[in-house]
């Protein structure tokens, strides 16, 4: 201990002396390598310390320690350049546009690009190249485990499905909690990612706090994910081919079902022979033992190909790509086929820079229904199938089960009645930047973008299939003769942003840097849709051509729907100001006013703003003693933002819905007016510390935040006696999200040949309802859920199950007092329990690379949430002993004294109890990749620039307890992601090989 004290003393004396060491003045000029234009605002560093900034003519003059041998120039959008200081102390440097490696140092907010150093909000930037090779159709799923505070639940392995993404906890109850996705400045819906090529994405930035999202205003209230697509670089045209082939395997279902012997034993000995089988029939059935999984699931093939080209000259650069992506799911006849194309073009001409980013894609999706309890959904019927029935009859036709019409052969449903949808998507934006001549550094920019997407859906129930026959059996003879349904939805959103930006450096040594921008933005969404179902599919065509015209006698009257579903507009005016002093002290201000068509004229406009500040402590002279910490930044932000997402287009108006009575039209109130409806507001405080230790071998950040939503959008339970459709949206109550996020990256080994990197991230979010409407303590919400003051959102509201009474086999419950045991289910014993939103989320990425070989593994974990397992309820329900049943049924109580957790089978199964509540904790090996890159020398001999081969495994291992296919439960599975409703599509467990060649 004493030794160390002495050492520190010596060190500080040495450093103090260093502070008074001799200096020298280095001068020079920084220009753009392409057009030799002077670059102002570039930072001059030496040995990691900032000494000054270039002026408007690109020149600089800095005093640096005489011992320094080199200086580094750093500027946003350009690669850092380090140069030796020659004897004359004059350094002229040309900067080239940033390459991939330095992108990590840039934060793209969509409206501006900031140096990470200067960013004072809460943002994470992720290089897309590290994850875009994962064989997943929908980009949002790739975000999983990549950044703290981003909770991604996939919910399904169906090709093309989008995930539930929540940033920093759910802040709204009846409003939307989905983040805003921006691709090159254009808003995109998460559902559309299945028709976009994630390989075109260069990087994405996650904006979390109010200061970062303020420029997106109300659209960004739930956080923003900004995606930048690849841009061309001047130079020789570079071609790139990416190809991948893989196979998806079926994971193991943790919901265990009975096989034939078990099922028949169960039916005869425990369930009281519900089918009334004779002993001879039982003996016959025992001869068949079918695992229906073998017929419904398959090994799914995935393949993708992409060809891209990029290049250009000093004035014009381009990036273009075409791609093909085919993925088969693990369920037979489910697949996604996609073709996309993109062209990004930028041209610079003296004071003007303009460009276009255009992309288009089309996909065809053959899918199966998910998250329902339907007796026709194959993913339910595969579980509810009887193992003693064969899938096919002797003549090759589909088995007509004794369960018909309450069970449809899943193989027939998937093969004969598959639904298809086709999506067409086009996004594009044009932008122009103009350096205005009247004032130096005043730039005008316009960005106009459009996002068009259309989905055509097609469903069929072929004549003669069990699905059609079921309708007849259930008293709907018209549908029994086959039906065709088609739907068409199209949406167009355009966004126009105008801005003026002024940058200047002030002060004698240009220490003061200021950037001010004013914006005007207008967003408009319009949609149109129609759908119809035609009956009488009697002709031998599997489309509308097969329909027989309807008459009063045959009753084939089509059902038609549709209209103009979307019609909203948002108009905004906002301004930002970024100020920095010595590139060490930062201050950012934003102010904004938003007007939304979704609110009444009197409540339409709202104004809010944010303030953020940052301080690079490590640049201070007093910090020089801290050798181990080479970078330390403290940042803080405070801001408010309004929200109006996910509330429908006309939530404040009284609305009359339409209907039919006796062939005449009807109108009835289906939404109650609320003229007072206004903005939901969120205020967020964020404090963060970014640090780099041991010459940046360890990099990390810690952020704490507190978000408070006021005037929550709540659709409260309307007293039944009030009627009016029972639907009204109000602003009432408040909810808090507070949490901590940490990232830590280690360059454990960092040699020329061998590198070992470890990146960790962890986030904890605590959600608390702090206030409820009318000062109530409890508000009913959803099914099996309730909102209670002091408890998190999506808390379960169930009666506590207390096992089985060994004496009589009855279920026991805990009364509301928390101790008395009762056998009587009573709604008055409902209590608030844990939440379905996982508070703990973590990710880990470990990468080894040795020469051209790279091995990386990505893990993610989620803990602390509960899931209501309705899928299990349906195979443990006392009346469903005639269907496929949970193996646990074998332990059902039969004899007095028997200790078991499964009650007697003839007791009515109560659903709203904790018997079906399960823990949602899990961790999974999200991705493992082994890659080999050809050495440059070998590549050169082959006449190519480079080649990379890889093999990767997706979701190879998952540890969880939930009794189902997968623990990642999202709104696809039921409700708000709190319920595993049924028909769960297993997550894809994929092994693939890939190749990337550039030439």
């Amino acid at each position, binding site marked *: 201990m004493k030794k160390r004290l002495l050492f520190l003393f010596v060190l500080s004396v040495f450093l103090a002396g260093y502070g008074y060491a001799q200096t020298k003045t280095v001068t020079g000029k920084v220009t753009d390598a392409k057009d030799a234009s002077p670059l102002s605002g570039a930072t001059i560093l030496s040995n990691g310390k900032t000494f000054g900034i270039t002026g408007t003519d690109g020149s600089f003059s800095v005093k640096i320690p005489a011992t320094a041998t080199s200086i580094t120039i750093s500027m946003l959008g350009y690669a850092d350049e380090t140069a030796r200081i020659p004897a004359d102390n004059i350094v002229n440097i040309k900067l080239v546009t940033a390459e991939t490696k330095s992108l990590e140092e840039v934060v793209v907010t969509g409206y501006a690009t900031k140096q990470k150093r200067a960013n004072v909000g809460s943002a994470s930037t992720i290089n897309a190249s590290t994850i875009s090779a994962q064989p997943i159709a929908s980009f949002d799923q790739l975000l999983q485990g990549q950044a703290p505070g981003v909770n991604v639940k996939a919910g399904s392995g169906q090709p093309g499905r989008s995930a539930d993404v929540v940033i920093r906890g759910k802040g709204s109850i009846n409003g939307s909690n989905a983040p805003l996705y921006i691709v090159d400045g254009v808003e995109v819906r998460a559902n559309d990612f299945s028709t976009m090529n994630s390989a075109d994405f260069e990087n994405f930035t996650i904006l979390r706090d109010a200061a970062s999202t303020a420029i997106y205003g109300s659209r960004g209230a739930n956080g923003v994910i900004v995606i930048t697509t690849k841009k061309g670089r001047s130079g020789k045209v570079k071609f790139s081919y990416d190809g991948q082939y893989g196979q998806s395997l079926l994971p193991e279902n943790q919901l265990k079902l009975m096989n034939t012997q078990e099922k028949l034993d169960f039916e005869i000995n425990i369930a009281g022979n*519900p089918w009334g089988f004779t002993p001879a029939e039982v003996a016959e059935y025992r001869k068949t033992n079918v695992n229906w999984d073998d017929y419904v699931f398959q090994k799914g093939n995935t393949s993708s190909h992409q060809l891209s080209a990029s290049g250009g000259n000093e004035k014009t650069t381009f990036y273009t790509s075409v791609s093909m992506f085919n993925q088969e799911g693990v369920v037979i006849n489910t697949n996604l086929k996609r073709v996309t194309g993109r062209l990004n073009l930028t041209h610079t001409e003296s004071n003007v820079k303009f460009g276009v980013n255009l992309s288009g894609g089309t996909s065809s999706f053959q899918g199966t229904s998910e998250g329902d309890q339907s007796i026709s959904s194959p993913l339910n019927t595969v579980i509810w199938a009887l193992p003693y029935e064969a899938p096919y009859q002797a003549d090759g036709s589909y088995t007509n089960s004794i369960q018909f019409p309450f069970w449809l052969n899943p193989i027939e449903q998937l093969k004969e009645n598959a639904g298809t949808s086709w999506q067409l998507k086009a996004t594009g934006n044009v932008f122009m930047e103009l350096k205005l001549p009247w004032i130096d550094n005043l730039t005008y920019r316009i960005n106009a973008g459009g996002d068009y997407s259309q989905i055509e859906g097609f469903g069929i129930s072929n004549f003669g299939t069990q699905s059609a026959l079921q309708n007849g059996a259930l008293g*709907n003879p018209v549908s029994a003769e086959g039906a065709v349904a088609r739907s068409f939805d199209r949406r167009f959103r355009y966004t126009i942003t*105008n801005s003026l930006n002024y940058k200047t450096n002030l002060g004698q040594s240009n220490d003061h840097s200021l950037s001010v921008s004013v914006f005007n933005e207008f967003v408009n969404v319009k949609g149109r849709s129609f759908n119809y179902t035609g009956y009488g599919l009697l002709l031998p065509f599997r489309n509308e051509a097969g329909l027989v015209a309807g008459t009063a006698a045959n009753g084939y009257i089509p059902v038609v729907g549709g209209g103009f579903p979307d019609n909203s507009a948002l108009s905004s005016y906002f301004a930002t100001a970024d100020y920095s002093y010595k590139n060490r002290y930062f201050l950012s201000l934003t102010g904004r006013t938003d007007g939304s068509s979704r609110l009444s004229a009197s409540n339409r406009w709202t104004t809010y703003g944010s303030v953020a500040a940052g301080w690079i402590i490590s640049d201070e002279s007093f910090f020089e003693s801290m050798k181990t910490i080479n970078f330390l930044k403290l940042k803080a932000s405070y801001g408010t933002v309004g929200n109006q997402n996910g509330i429908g287009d006309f939530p404040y108006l009284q609305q009359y819905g339409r209907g039919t009575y006796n062939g005449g039209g009807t109108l009835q109130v289906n939404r109650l007016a609320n003229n007072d409806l206004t903005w939901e507001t969120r205020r967020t405080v964020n404090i963060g510390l970014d640090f780099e230790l041991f010459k940046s071998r360890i990099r990390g950040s810690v952020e704490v935040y507190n978000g408070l939503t006021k005037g929550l959008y709540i659709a409260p339970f309307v007293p039944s*006696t009030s009627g009016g459709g029972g639907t009204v949206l109000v602003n009432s109550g408040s909810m808090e999200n507070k949490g901590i996020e940490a990232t830590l990256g280690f360059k454990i080994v960092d040699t020329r040949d061998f590198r070992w990197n470890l990146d960790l991230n962890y986030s904890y979010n605590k959600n608390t309802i702090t206030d409820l409407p009318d000062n109530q303590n409890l508000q009913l919400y959803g099914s099996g859920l309730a909102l209670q003051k002091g408890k998190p959102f999506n808390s379960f509201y169930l009666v506590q199950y207390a096992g089985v009474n060994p004496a009589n086999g009855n279920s026991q419950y805990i009364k509301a007092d928390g101790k008395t045991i009762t056998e009587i289910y009573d709604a008055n014993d409902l209590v608030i329990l844990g939440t379905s939103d996982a508070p703990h989320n973590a990710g880990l990425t470990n990468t080894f690379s040795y020469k051209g070989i790279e091995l990386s593994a990505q893990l993610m974990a989620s803990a602390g949430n509960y899931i209501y397992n309705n899928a299990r309820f349906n195979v443990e329900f006392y009346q469903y002993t005639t269907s496929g049943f949970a193996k646990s049924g074998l332990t059902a109580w039969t004899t007095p004294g028997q200790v078991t957790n499964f009650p007697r089978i003839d007791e009515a199964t109560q659903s709203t109890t904790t018997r079906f509540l399960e823990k949602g904790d899990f961790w999974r090996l999200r991705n493992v990749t082994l890659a080999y890159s050809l050495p440059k020398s070998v590549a050169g001999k082959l006449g190519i620039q480079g080649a990379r081969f890889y093999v990767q495994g997706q979701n190879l291992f998952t540890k969880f307890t939930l009794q189902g296919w997968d623990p990642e439960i999202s709104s696809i599975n039921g409700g708000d992601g709190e319920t595993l409703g049924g028909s769960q599509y297993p997550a894809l467990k994929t092994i693939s090989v890939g190749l990337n060649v550039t030439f």
Partner: protein
Amino acid sequence: MKNKIFIIALFLSSIVLMNGCSKELNTKPEAQLTELTSFGDIQNALRGCYDGFQSANYYNNTSNSGSPSGWSGLPDLMGDDYVEALESLGNWNAMSEMIYAADNGIVQGIFAQPYEIISRVNNVLKFLPRFETGANAAQAKQIRAQVLAIRAHAHFDLMRYFAVDFGRNSTSLGVPYVTDFDAATALTTFPTRKTVKEDYDLILTDLANSLIAFRAGGNTTDNTARTYIDSTVVYAIRARVNYYAGQYSDVIADATVALNNRSLTNSAGYSAMFTAATEASPVTEVYWAIPSDNALRPGGATSGTSASYRITAATSAVIQSMGGAYVNTNVTRFNQAGVGGVAKTLCWKYNGIRSFKVYRAGEMMLMRAEAKQRTGDITALTDLNNLRTNRGVSIGVETGTALLNAILQMRRVELLGEGHRWFDIRRSTKIIARAECSSSGGASRADKCTITASERGWIMPIPFNDLKVNTNLTQNPGY
């Protein structure tokens, strides 16, 4: 070049600034109306009131859905003429075994739907007065007459499940009687439960005012399909209300008016009444029918090839012994193949897509016969035999208790599958004894075969959610 770009930029920015103005934010819904303005809107809103009866909470009853179907399928499958079949998915099991708790979803649906319809009525009544003078005055008065009758009918249907008892002057808890609709106070209006007597008074007042309005505006026109309420239906409603209240002289009076307006049909008419073919122009016997509109399936739980509930062997035997129209294949089907080798008897009245007959002459005749018998009127037998004759059933000469029992048995058979039985048991013995429980032929459980009069389920619970929100409501005993 530079100049061109400036011009383009200025042009673009001017477009944008124009776009950005507030006017662009004035969007309007194109698939919803926000206000009732024209008389045509009022007429659509009137049909909107009726439309509420097509809900699966009221008269629709989709197969195996577990829909509340409070006044079509449910009172039958909860009664003793039906037993849960092996085909059942168990969605109504808690209802037919009467083990529902206050948070039961079906109970919630039953409680909510009548008030939903009532709110539509009250909304129409708000807009109606300005049309009751001038060109549309007569039609507007007809609308008033209809919506008041709907309001009375819906409140009465609530009483049938939730009122503690049915005494005409009972001070027991009835149901809240709602006569106003205001969106602005929807969340803060917390009505209390009226007494049973108060409910009766309000129902009868609405019905009396309905008749007054009909007199002023004339009877409902364009009503070939009998899908709209006319004055005959109002008398029929009042007869049923008074029947529950035990006001037998009033029952006789109103049923007589109704029967004089629209009389019983014969045996052939009875069986034809339940076919889809007669829906557009039903037999005289039908007073008010909820049209199918190609979607309504009032008997989903109790008919079709996979009915969740089938007629008990005992009731099946009674129907067979009566014969006549009741064994017509449009009405009852015997020996239908079922799961587990069970030969099922099914009520075929509402097999598939059908209109639902809410009030008809058969019920009037039975109520009048019973009312007469209970008040010592010897023409009770005449009424019963009149019905028997019109159903192809042999007439009898019963008197006294035998006559009463004959009327009640006839009621069971005549109105089977039409949403009456459970209420009839509730008003009388409050005992259900099912014989086919827990055998391999039925899905009901052995310990739920017999339901006694002391069971709390005979009065449905006020839904848990409503109790939580509206603390002015008092829960029914036992929950």
